[in-house]
């Protein structure tokens, strides 16, 4: 009989469950979701690919022409690549609803535009 007071109180209170997807929890500032690249800033130092614990980042090309292939399915969302990038190319987003229907959708590619490639090869 000891919990009866709590039971009666809960009859009046609103339930604590959030009705996803109509109600969502508030996201906090430091939340780590998917990462994304601003590919124009990348200098191709390969530090992110070397430090990733699960080999989710692949570099194609080298130096200022480097382009990124990112395997979302392997990513741990640990944030190591964000911390180690010297030019702050990589950023964390708050996206966590990452269900895909096809396996090939899980591979995201960050490619440079043609103008970017031409200007970098001129240097």
């Amino acid at each position, binding site marked *: *009989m000891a*919990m*009866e007071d709590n*039971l009666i109180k*809960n*009859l009046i*209170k609103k*339930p*604590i*469950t959030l*009705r996803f997807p109509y109600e969502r929890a508030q996201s906090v500032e430091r939340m780590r979701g998917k990462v994304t690249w601003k590919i124009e800033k990348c200098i191709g130092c390969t530090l992110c690919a070397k430090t990733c614990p699960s080999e989710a980042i692949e570099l194609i090309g080298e130096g200022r022409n480097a382009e990124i292939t990112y395997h979302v399915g392997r990513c741990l969302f640990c944030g190591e690549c964000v911390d180690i990038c010297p030019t702050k190319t990589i950023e964390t987003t708050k996206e966590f609803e990452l269900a895909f229907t096809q396996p090939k959708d899980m591979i995201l590619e960050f490619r440079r535009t043609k103008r970017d490639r031409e200007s970098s090869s001129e240097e």
Partner: protein
Amino acid sequence: MVPEEITAILQVFLFPGFSFLFSLAFFVEWLDRKLVAKFQNRYGPLHVGPKGILQPFADFIKLLSKEDITPAMADRVPFIAMPLLMLTLAMTPLFCIPINGCSALVSFEGDLIVVMFIMTLIALLLFAGAWVSTNRFSTVGGIRAGLQMFGYEIPLNIVMIGPAIGAGSLSISEIIKWQSQGRWFIITQPLGFAILTICLLAHLQVVPFDIPEAETEIVSGWLVEFSGKKLALIRLARNFKLILAASLMTSLYMGGTSGLWQPNPLTYFIKLVVCVFILSNLRALFARFRIDQFLAGVWRYLTPLALLQISIVEVLAW
């Protein structure tokens, strides 16, 4: 004038007969689940129908469509017949409870005894169903069901006879008629009402007495081998047992259909909801007992108190 036979057939099939009882079964399950969820600070059924009221019906349809497996070592005929028998036996006593007006569809002198007898048969049927399943877990569950019946049968029958002695008749309809002119038995025999609630919890196999069916210990106990259509029928039978339990509580102790106005189904319905509320509250409040603790507790406390209550009733009836 509509001939009597047509009225009788309509009464049996529509109201307060089969259709009404089936929908009441689904409604009572929804009410129970929603109340327990509210006590636990969550929602309960929510999406199917307005406020989830069609959820039990959806569960029933889903179970009917699932694969139905009979174990190779089980006795086929008793195994298949047991859910059907249980559903029939659970629904039959409901015809003796007055829902529309002061007398039930089937009422004769002694129908209270018939109701008590059918409730005992259901408990025996559980044991039989567990035995023919030939599974270790269901054997343990069936043994526990049999032992539990040894415990609660006697106090349950004693406190059901109490109102009969007070009203001077063994028919549920007569008891209700007596209460509509006299006082409700819950005021004159409160101890009997409390013991009836506890014994009905044991009969329904609901926490704190869901020992034969303990989910975390023996994986659903006696009903572990039933699947598909058989499980759907067993769950429906369980809902009918809940209606029967709440109806007995209202009819024997709280006046049934009688109240401030003429006997009508709305009063019965409101009292049914109150009794389901009491049962759900007790369900959310306790942990589960062990079988030896249950038997010791019942024989040490409930049976003497029931005998005390019935002696007080006898003395007052002199």
